[in-house]
């Protein structure tokens, strides 16, 4: 085979080493490898590299998720998000949300797909509505709707 054939085969070697080569190509490539020491040597190098891949730390995915979650807490949110969170707390206090009416808040937030049982929402000792991560998960539009809903429930 000529140099062009070698170039084509060398393009396919990583795929060959990882078993991603179509059957119809396989015969042609293997036949070339039988007669080409240079390509064979390159395939061996690729196989060597594949035999000792970098070890991915076992808990890395968990660490990434924690880092992303932490970065999304209210104190890391944009000015709009912080303002909205503050407004929500102030509104909750203003409309008299208290421990003896938790169902009011729960009914509203369930409509927005937020589950208070997951620890995303709670009422503090001072009857303040303490929202945390769940506020981060809401779009600006949804947050505005939630504010409007809460205001309506409080007035009722």
């Amino acid at each position, binding site marked *: 085979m000529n140099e062009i054939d070698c170039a084509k085969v*060398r393009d396919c070697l*990583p*795929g060959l*080493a*990882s078993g*991603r080569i179509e059957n119809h190509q396989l015969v042609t490539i293997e036949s070339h490898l039988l007669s080409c020491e240079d390509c064979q*040597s*390159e395939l061996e*190098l*690729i196989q*060597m*590299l*594949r*035999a*000792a*891949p*970098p*070890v*991915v*730390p076992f808990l*890395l*995915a968990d*660490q*990434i*998720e924690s*880092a*992303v979650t932490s*970065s*999304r807490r209210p104190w890391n949110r944009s000015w709009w998000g912080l303002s909205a969170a503050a407004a929500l707390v102030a509104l909750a206090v203003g409309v008299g949300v208290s421990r003896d009416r938790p169902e009011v808040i729960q009914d509203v937030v369930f409509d927005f*797909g937020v589950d208070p049982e997951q620890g995303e929402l709670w009422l503090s000792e001072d009857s303040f509505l303490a929202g945390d991560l769940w506020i981060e*998960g*809401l*779009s600006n539009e*949804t947050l505005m709707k939630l504010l409007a809903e809460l205001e309506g429930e409080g007035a009722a």
Partner: protein
Amino acid sequence: MRDSLRGAREISDAELVEQACSGDDRAFSALVRKHHASAYRVALSITRRDDIAQDVVQDAFIKAFRALGGFRGDSSFRTWMMTVTANEARATLRKRGRWNESSIEVAGPLEASAPDPAEQAVAGQESSRARAMLDTLPEKQRLAISARIDEGLSFREIATLIGSSEGAARVNYFHGIRRLRELME
């Protein structure tokens, strides 16, 4: 919402991105699980330090999450995530004042890619030596080789990753392979 993500492995990246954009944490979690290993290998290839690579990947995912709304799908999510990670790795090295094509002696020992004796016995000393030699190549060459061999990326995708043309990506890969073969002889 919970049911829609059951069996998330079957959902395409494009769908997961769309769901993550609309605030679905589980969709983003699925993207993290699916692509963190590739991102880590890119970060390790550039930084050559396990501890730095882990920090880089975390920061890259945080930034990717914030910018997810701007992801237009011109490339696959995986290639995009790997490119974000590569940029984050380079920025981190710049901040640390290590932005150079240093030799392996300067870079210090590899923590994650250097297997322990038991692993060495399995993988073979030659394989470990090949990995160590790969680390001595210039960044673009080792990144092109790692992306092609470990991740199965096309030369077009590698071009995006190393910030070059497709032709340059091909040249970097083959020059790197040739140099590696010389080093292994």
